[in-house]
């Protein structure tokens, strides 16, 4: 291949030719010949460069300088000044206009009010290259932990930071660790719960896809703190890309000696196993997840004993959620004080939400704990689509409830949400406007629970089914007045008696919509009307007619 010193690209799109590009090309070639540098400069005709209003165009490499509106008479100056003396002809160069007017990424409203700790690297680094993670202080916290800190110090920092489990329950992470750390056992396990199944929640997947090493580092810090040398990552099989990126990250960490024996030349060794789920929502519950890793049906176990005492293969086990783990490198590296400056006193740090539904800008949002729902929905999410009004926000998926307009200024944290009859959950946040029917939403989630109930305990298996029957009846216009009372009673009973967290929280969507939108239920039951126009009562009539016609035949 011939090497040229200069590449001159001339736009040969129809419009540039129309603007006189051809004449310029000839003039340029003549000039090159005159100065005897034909062998040094390659003149290439390219397709349309797209900037037709500025044509004819000439682009010169290696500098990548673009000349606009070039004419035949300019050829001499370009060759003599630029090609021979290396001085670009400023007067012909394209001026970058308007560029300063673009807002910085961090200044656009969607990002301006966010605080990125967990998502610090997402979208900014190449998740398939460990060096990019290392360049942004990756594995620095791990190094600090294993080299400068005793395991107890690590637990203390996490305790001090006030970090609470981001999977939904909000249990203090450091405290949980100390239970497992105090167990005298040769074998202990760390499990990363990446079985993110809550409808509407996909924060964990984004972290795994965008910054897998932060989770791996978090697991290793946990391992060092409690004295474990094996970690399991249990990922939903519905997340093939996350699985691929994790595999790659584990491999690279092993190659770099960051995962394996005697990390940083210390006595600390850690190995990691990646496991895929197989499509069972209940496996997000920690004891069901343990059963699944052990190769069993993913049915929850009775607690106590808690996994921190007796978990995977009967050994002390710490199960942390993806987002919790991704917080750890920052806490250990920058200290508890840094972390505590964000969020509230009882819920420090940030929380990532997956904002979706009837909202103008959907996506992943990381805000300090205690940020009001109004700020998230209206300032960051850009509000409700024009012509519609906010009706409710659903947090916590099938375990949560709906927050109505009157509580939109509630700070979102672990304390305030339960007061409203919902939970923080793992971070799904579905916004609904007046077009959504609350009875339909409650029915939707109950159907979900009925489908996903593992069937082990009666309250969840049978109770939710009966509640769903009642709701179906109501949405078909066949509800009875006593149904409301019945739903409430059954809901409370299931909450009290179900075996695991999934069952205990299953009635929440029904109970919370009953609390705030009772008149909507009554409209269905008494007036046989769906105010939002979602439930189709006429379908029932037609269905019945068909059915009756069939029988008549």
């Amino acid at each position: 291949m011939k090497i040229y010193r200069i590449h001159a690209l001339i736009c040969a799109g129809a419009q540039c030719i129309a603007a006189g590009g051809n004449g310029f090309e000839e003039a340029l070639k003549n000039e090159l010949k005159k100065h005897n540098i034909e062998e040094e400069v390659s003149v290439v005709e390219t397709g349309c460069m797209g900037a037709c209003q500025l044509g004819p165009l000439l682009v010169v490499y290696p500098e990548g300088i673009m000349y606009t509106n070039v004419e035949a008479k300019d050829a001499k100056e370009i060759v003599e000044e630029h090609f021979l003396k290396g001085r670009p002809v400023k007067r012909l160069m394209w001026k970058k206009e308007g560029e300063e007017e673009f807002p910085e990424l961090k200044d656009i409203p969607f990002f301006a009010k966010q605080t990125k700790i967990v998502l610090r690297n997402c979208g900014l680094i190449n998740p398939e290259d460990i060096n990019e993670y290392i360049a942004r202080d990756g594995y620095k916290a791990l190094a600090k932990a294993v080299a400068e800190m005793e395991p107890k110090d690590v637990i203390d920092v996490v305790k001090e930071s006030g970090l609470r489990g981001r999977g939904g329950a909000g249990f203090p992470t450091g405290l949980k660790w100390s239970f497992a750390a105090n167990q005298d056992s040769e074998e202990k396990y760390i499990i990363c719960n990446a079985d993110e199944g809550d409808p509407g929640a996909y924060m964990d997947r984004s972290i795994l896809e965008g910054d897998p090493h932060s989770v791996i580092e978090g697991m290793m810090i946990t391992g060092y703190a409690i004295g474990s040398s094996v970690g399991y990552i249990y990922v939903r099989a519905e997340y093939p890309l996350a699985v691929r990126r994790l595999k790659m990250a584990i491999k690279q960490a092993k190659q770099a000696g960051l995962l394996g024996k005697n990390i940083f030349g210390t006595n600390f060794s850690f190995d990691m196993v990646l496991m895929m789920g197989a499509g069972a929502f209940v496996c997000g519950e920690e004891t069901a997840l343990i059963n699944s890793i052990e190769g069993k049906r993913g049915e929850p176990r009775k607690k106590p004993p808690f996994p921190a005492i007796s978990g995977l293969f009967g050994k002390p086990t710490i199960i942390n959620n993806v987002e919790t783990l991704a917080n750890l490198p920052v806490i250990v590296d920058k200290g508890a004080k840094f972390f505590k400056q964000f969020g509230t006193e009882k819920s420090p740090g940030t929380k990532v939400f997956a904002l979706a539904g009837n909202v103008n800008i959907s996506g992943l949002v990381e805000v300090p704990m205690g940020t009001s729902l109004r700020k998230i929905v209206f300032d960051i999410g850009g509000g409700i689509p024009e012509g519609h009004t906010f009706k409710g926000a659903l947090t916590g998926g099938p375990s949560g409830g709906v927050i109505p307009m009157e509580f939109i200024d509630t700070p979102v944290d672990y304390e305030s949400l339960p007061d409203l009859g919902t939970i923080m959950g793992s971070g799904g946040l579905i916004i609904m406007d007046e077009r959504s029917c609350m009875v339909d939403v409650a029915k939707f989630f109950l159907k979900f629970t009925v489908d996903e109930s593992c069937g082990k305990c009666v309250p969840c298996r049978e109770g939710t089914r009966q509640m769903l029957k009642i709701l179906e009846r109501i949405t078909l216009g066949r509800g009875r007045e006593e149904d409301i009372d019945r739903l409430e009673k059954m809901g409370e009973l299931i909450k009290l008696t179900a075996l695991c967290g999934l069952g205990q929280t299953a009635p929440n969507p029904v109970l919370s919509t009953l609390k705030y939108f009772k008149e909507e239920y009554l409209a269905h039951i008494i007036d046989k009307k769906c105010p939002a126009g979602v439930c189709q009562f006429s379908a029932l009539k037609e269905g019945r007619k068909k059915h009756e016609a069939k029988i008549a035949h």
Partner: protein
Amino acid sequence: MEKIKSIEELRKLREHARKSLQVRSGEAKVKIMVSMGTVGIAAGARDVLMAIISELEKRQFHDAQIVERGSLGLDNEEPVVAVERDNKTVFYGKVTAEMAREIVAQHVINGQIVSEWVIAKG
């Protein structure tokens, strides 16, 4: 990759990686970053990526480095493409294959930002 055996080595690698990230953006004239999380792909990022590659090939432009990245979080604007050129990064939103071709032609090759599609600068 060499194994990292001590913290000192990690520190060195970090310094080196930081520099090489900077150098790299200087080495390849243009860095094109395509947001390739699940949401991005579902919104069509793969077609966009293919369009970018084919356009670069068609125009015989080899001075660009294409990097796949995770999601920025701004799912609404997916597929998101970021172009880093002349030490400046610009983010384009809701990019289609056709738009991607034009971004390559105008911005990547000629350094002219396609203002109307820009959502922000980096």
